[in-house]
């Protein structure tokens, strides 16, 4: 009799437990989700605000820790690899996930996604869904932001000067030279033709790739523009990258005098104050110009999805050749475009070694951030740093007009982003182990030294090639060849 009662009790408790799972799935009381990301309100601020909402809904406490940009990746890698596990979610560049995943540090999110009825992954633009969120065919990250680097110009400044928006980097320099020194915000001071964040150890190395991509990549996204994909020999010691470096440096003639020491926050302050005629930026200026402190440029900063080149690299000779149907099959009107998916967007990944309850709460939070109900609002607020990555956010201007964006600007803004995403020659950011080291350390350092006049462009490119080769050897050349093939969809 006792055994029967015990059995019945056990079965009942088990049944209650099973039936209770869906009910308590969103109750994460007592759980703390620790997130690590970049400093400042951009990216981190909205995570914290949404974290408070999430805590109210589920009981889980969300703590956002901010570290300097250059320290995000190593801190996460260190924490997760050494078993410190003080971080549950890392929010970083989508492309960096591959190195963490190769070390077995990322939680596979496919099972979570399969049980998630609200995330609607099909609504995420294919590039961000397949490139940003997946590693090795499995979903390992969830986007909170979608990134392309574009060029913005002041419609009023170019209009009054009778200038057309630039289509090539040479035209960019020409336009910048003609508007440089004009008073663009009515404060009586001379302003700048071009503003680019060129500070070392910041994000200058993305901008140089935006310059290089249309000169070096001609045969579609799968071609890439950093390496010979078959051997992983660096493809930087050529006339294409050399021209990109020289053009990039030349923009400094029409920029703020302290440009070499300007981070992205500094250039944003400048263009919001109406001091820049042309800028290289991500999607943020589209919405940042709606901020209260950007009255000088509200509705005046239009986007160009990509700046192109009339000359492209002949990889066989290492020299530049004119654009033609053979040399650049995706060219439009004699100009080869290659919009650069710089950074790939901010995405969240979960520490595989976190305990299951924390992983559940972490996924639920990332999903909450990613769902269109939340992200559809967040991407329209410039200060968040979040740019659109869902089809529903890119298909219609309604969302943006509702958020206060003038219809013309919304048409231009979404048109530019869609133009970049839809371009078959779109260039992809590095997505191989060591990506941050290849670009954030080696490329960034040599670029900074060239800009400062310490070394010549040839020396810079030689040093980059040597540095990249060392990293490739460290990770194993054959492994890197395979990773590169996977990253570019070959």
């Amino acid at each position, binding site marked *: 009799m006792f055994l029967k009662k015990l059995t019945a009790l056990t079965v009942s408790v088990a049944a209650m437990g099973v039936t209770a799972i869906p009910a308590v799935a969103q109750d994460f009381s007592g759980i703390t989700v620790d997130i690590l990301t970049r400093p400042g309100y951009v990216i981190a601020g909205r995570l914290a605000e949404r974290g408070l909402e999430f805590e109210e809904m589920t009981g889980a406490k969300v703590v956002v820790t901010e570290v300097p940009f250059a320290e995000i990746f190593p801190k996460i890698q260190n924490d997760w690899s050494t078993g410190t596990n003080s971080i549950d979610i890392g929010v970083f560049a989508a492309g960096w996930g591959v190195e963490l995943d190769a070390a077995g540090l990322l939680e596979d999110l496919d099972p979570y996604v399969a049980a998630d009825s609200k995330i609607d992954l099909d609504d995420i633009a294919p590039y961000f869904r397949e490139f940003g969120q997946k590693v090795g065919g499995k979903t390992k990250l969830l986007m909170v932001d979608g990134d392309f680097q574009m060029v913005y110009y002041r419609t009023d400044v170019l209009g009054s000067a009778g200038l057309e928006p630039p289509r090539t980097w040479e035209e960019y320099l020409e336009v910048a030279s003609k508007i440089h020194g004009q008073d663009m915000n009515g404060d009586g001071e001379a302003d700048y033709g071009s503003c680019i964040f060129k500070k*070392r150890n910041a994000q200058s190395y993305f901008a140089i790739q935006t310059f290089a991509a249309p000169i070096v990549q001609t045969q579609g996204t799968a071609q890439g523009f950093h390496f010979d994909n078959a051997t992983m020999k660096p493809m930087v010691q050529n006339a294409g990258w050399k021209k990109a470096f020289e053009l990039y440096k030349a923009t400094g003639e029409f920029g703020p005098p302290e440009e*070499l020491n300007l981070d992205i926050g500094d250039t944003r302050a400048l263009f919001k104050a109406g001091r820049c005629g042309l800028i290289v930026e991500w999607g943020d200026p589209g919405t940042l110009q709606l901020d209260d402190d950007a009255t000088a440029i509200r509705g005046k900063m239009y986007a160009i999805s990509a700046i192109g080149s009339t000359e492209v690299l002949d990889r066989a000779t290492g020299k530049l050749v004119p654009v033609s149907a053979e040399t650049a099959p995706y060219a439009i009107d004699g100009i080869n475009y290659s919009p650069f998916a710089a950074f790939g967007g901010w995405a969240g990944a979960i520490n595989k070694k976190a305990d299951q309850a924390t992983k559940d709460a972490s996924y639920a939070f990332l999903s909450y951030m990613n769902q269109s109900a939340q992200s559809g609002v967040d991407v329209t607020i410039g200060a968040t740093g979040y740019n659109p990555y869902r089809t529903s956010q890119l298909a219609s201007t309604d969302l943006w007009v509702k958020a206060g964006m003038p219809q013309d600007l919304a048409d231009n803004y979404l048109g530019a982003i869609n133009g970049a995403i839809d371009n078959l020659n779109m260039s992809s950011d590095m997505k191989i182990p060591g990506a941050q080291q290849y670009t954030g350390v*080696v490329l960034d350092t040599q670029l900074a*030294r*060239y800009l*400062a006049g310490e*070394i010549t462009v040839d020396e810079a490119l030689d040093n980059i090639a040597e540095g990249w080769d*060392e990293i490739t050897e460290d990770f194993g050349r054959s492994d890197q060849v395979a990773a590169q093939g996977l990253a570019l969809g070959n």
Partner: protein
Amino acid sequence: MTLYTTSRQPTVISAGVTLRNRLGEWVDRHSGTFFIAPCATLILIFAIFPTIYSIFFAVSRVRFTGDGLKFRYVGLRNFSKQFFGSSEVHFLGRTDPVSIFGYTIFVIIVVALLVWLWRSQKYTTWVGMIGRTISAAMAIFLSWILCASFLSGNAIGTLYTTLFYVIIGCTFQFVIGTGLAFLCSQPISGKNFFRVVFFIPLMITPLGVGYAMRMVADVTKGPFEPLLGFLGLSDWIWSVDAWSARFVMMVGDSWQWIPFIFICMLAALENVPGDHVEAAQVDGASSPQIFREIIWPQVLPVAATVLLIRMIEAFKIVDLPNIMTGGGPGTATESMTLQSMYIWRANDMGSSAAIAYLLLILTVVVCASFFNYVVLGQVKKVGA
């Protein structure tokens, strides 16, 4: 039977002594060692062991995996690439082409060093000769880099940027700090107020100093913007020129560390017996004579120690260039410590450890040479 042990003070042990007694006496004899042992062990664990352990990093490629750190032995590659590989120009600076002037100065320095070494062997021991040979080898290497880079009009690397902060910065700080200390040791009104004011910067965290200096040195919005405009320097941007950026770094570093020199030298100056000075005054000595003949010899040991400590600290400068310029423009303000930190931040632990070891070697040789040949030389001269 009487048994004599080999202890410093022979102990008489009776024939019926037990093993326990002998053990107790052995412990007594070695009690000093036992008392020191915990401290020595702690030092070994917390100071020496990490230093030795980091050698494994310096000769390895370290990878982060899900199972922790994986080491792959790469020999001296992390070191050699600082001299011959992709980091050569970053570390040493550009050493090509070398000017005639550079070659000439280098030859003069080498000849001088060889003469000094030849003369040394007449009066020094073999151990001393080994030390002098190491110092001379380091001096020849550093001279070559200096002559091939800076003196030939080429850019310097992190090696000489560090030495700039150490040699020029410490000299500047020592002169100003000693001068202020001398002033405050005089019977002037309000000297206690000045002592506190001069001491404040030392109590601020280096990060705070970095941010404060960044704001102060901002030529477009900083407090000196009107002054620069008045002087016609409104277009001067210190942060985009290598030498002006290094100079601003040095000024920021000096602002923080002059108080250290000041407070130590003030204590030394105030310990100079007043009657010695008064006696010299009675004898009609002038102020410069009193300083040179009475005060300076008495503060020299403190001055040398302070300068040595300051030099060792200066080799490790990292906060200011990291915050103010991120090591830029280019790598112009990047010290070896900052170079090591940036590489470490990219999780290249091996190269980072290699640079740290190179810095350790440089610091030890330069500081030991400075102490042996400059400080001790001065002290002996004064003593004579």
